[in-house]
């Protein structure tokens, strides 16, 4: 950019700010109300987008924390050799960092006279760190688990009134090899040594974590297991890596990923986020109309100044640029003001959900959303708001710039 152009832009900005920020214009008449409308519109955008992005991320984080990036199971059968299977998986893609084997079974938990159906997941405790991320989710207790120790979800603890160090019974139905219509029962007593917030409502009420050896003994499957959790370098690439693994591994293996596990709800949330943006953006557009009418009034009151500036050699586009720059200044002020108010609204929402539980877990699968203010969302909101404000300013600015000098001079 030539120094002359830079000087001109600096000049436009300086003069537009001088003419805008005073009692006669932005801080007088309908100016404050127009600005307030914009701030509220942007605040609603910031709050809605941060809640929606928070919902997506809370959901994604819960899934990745609890079931890693990629899951591999053998269709209809148990896996025998861990060394060979692990080798096969790691050979499929260089981004694979670590693999954790697991076994699971449907079971019934009994405690204090109450029973509940659960899914018990047995994990190889040595391999858990680096694949699953239970650490920050523990409300009580820590890993690793010793023999006959168990970790349950918050929902199950509440439902069955279970506390740390309580003893609970887990019963697993086993089919008998010779009588197809009868079941055997395998049951053991476990000590609750951890309570987790697993992120998703159904997991909190149904998922129980045990040591792999305990589950293998309980389900009488020997050293065999159901599948493996796979950690890769970048969780956001799980869909591509899983697709690659699926093509490379034999067809007897089924590969899934964290996104596919909740595809419907994550896609619905993405769509809702876009729809909500456009619906709430209508408020910003309404505010932009207000700004436009305010600028019309401001520019009308400046007809004499515009005429004088033209006698000094200001061109039509100089005048237009000065008033469009005012639109940019109002848009920027409104966006940053709205961002601050939006932050308060978002934290207000956090307080509401922690105090009154405003997110019904049964419907949304999660009962708590960690709001997230994203730089990309903010940038998008800023650019959209600025675009609306520039358009809002352009037409009054054009009207002002086309003023004839002698008409402007007549204004009292």
């Amino acid at each position: 950019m030539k120094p002359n152009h830079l000087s001109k832009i600096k000049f436009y900005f300086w003069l537009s700010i001088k003419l805008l920020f005073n009692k006669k214009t932005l801080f007088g008449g309908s100016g404050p109300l127009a600005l307030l409308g914009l701030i509220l519109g942007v605040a609603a955008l910031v709050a809605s987008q941060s809640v929606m992005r928070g919902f997506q991320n809370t959901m994604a984080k819960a899934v990745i924390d609890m079931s890693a990036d990629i899951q591999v199971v053998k269709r209809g059968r148990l896996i025998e050799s861990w060394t060979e299977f692990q080798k096969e998986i790691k050979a499929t893609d260089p981004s694979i960092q670590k693999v954790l084997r697991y076994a699971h079974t449907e079971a019934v938990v009994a405690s204090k006279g109450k029973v509940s159906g659960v899914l018990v997941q047995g994990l190889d405790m040595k391999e858990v760190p680096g694949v699953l991320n239970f650490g920050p989710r523990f409300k009580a207790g820590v890993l690793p688990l010793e023999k006959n120790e168990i970790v349950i979800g918050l929902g199950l603890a509440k439902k069955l009134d279970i506390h740390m160090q309580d003893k609970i019974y887990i019963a697993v139905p086993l089919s008998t090899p010779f009588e197809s219509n009868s079941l055997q029962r395998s049951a053991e007593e476990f000590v609750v040594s951890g309570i987790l917030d697993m992120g998703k409502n159904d997991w909190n009420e149904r998922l129980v974590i045990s040591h792999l050896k305990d589950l293998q003994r309980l389900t009488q499957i020997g050293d065999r297991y159901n599948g493996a959790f796979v950690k890769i370098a970048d969780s956001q690439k799980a869909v591509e890596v899983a697709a690659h693994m699926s093509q490379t591994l034999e067809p007897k293996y089924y590969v899934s990923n964290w996104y596919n596990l909740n595809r419907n709800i994550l896609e619905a949330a993405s769509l809702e986020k876009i729809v909500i943006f456009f619906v709430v953006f209508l408020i910003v557009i309404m505010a932009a109309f207000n700004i436009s009418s305010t600028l019309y009034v401001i520019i009308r009151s400046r007809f004499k100044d515009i005429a004088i500036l033209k006698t000094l050699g200001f061109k039509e586009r100089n005048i237009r640029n000065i008033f469009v720059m005012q639109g940019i200044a109002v848009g920027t002020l409104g966006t940053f003001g709205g961002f601050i108010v939006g932050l308060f609204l978002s934290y207000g929402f956090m307080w509401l959900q922690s105090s009154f539980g405003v997110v019904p877990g049964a419907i949304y699968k999660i009962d708590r959303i960690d709001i997230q203010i994203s730089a990309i969302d903010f940038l998008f909101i800023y650019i959209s708001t600025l675009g609306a404000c520039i358009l809002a300013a352009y037409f009054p600015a054009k009207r002002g710039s086309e003023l004839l000098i002698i008409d402007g001079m007549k204004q009292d």
Partner: protein
Amino acid sequence: MLQIKNVTRFFKSGLSEVQVLKGINLEVQPSQAICLLGASGSGKSTLLQIMGTLDRPTSGEVNFDSVSLLDMSDDELSHFRNEKMGFVFQFHHLVMELTALENVILPCLVVGENRAEAEAKAVHWFEYLGISDRMTHYPNQLSGGELQRVSIARSLIKNPSILFADEPTGNLDSENSKKVQQLFFQLQKQLGLTLVVVTHDPEFAKQFTQVYRVQDGMISLESPIVI
């Protein structure tokens, strides 16, 4: 040389049209000082506005050094005004939100001149006009005479060839009026400025060697002036 030929100007007044200028011919030579004298509504200000490219005639020609100003685009005309013309009006017409110094440097800044250089030029004019202690004052902090001097400084900062003044003393008390009148002649002599002044004040007009009386849209040379 500024030359206008057969200039007419009609204004709409309701359904009818009023002819304010009726075929005016006038030439202003470089460094000449002329006065357009006339009663209120005689058309003298309209004539000055047309000569200063602030208004367009209904018909006729306006030429500067044989170049037609009426054929110029808005951009060219703005550039021409910025480079060649200065204006002083009855009311100071300063931007109230800017200091005196900021008002004066506006014509330089709009064409991308360096601010420090523009300020240095402005300081020279503030000193020349004897108001250097008023540079950082806002218009509402200045007296009538000071305001008019600031607007004169603004009109001179680009070293124009021709200065138009429309009733420059019309809003001043007699003491300040005399000072401003002296100032115009001082500027004309020292800088070789072409001066076109509109006034209805015969006392001011009689100081000019060339006075044109504007009456009923016609112009006639009236020199020396008869009061």
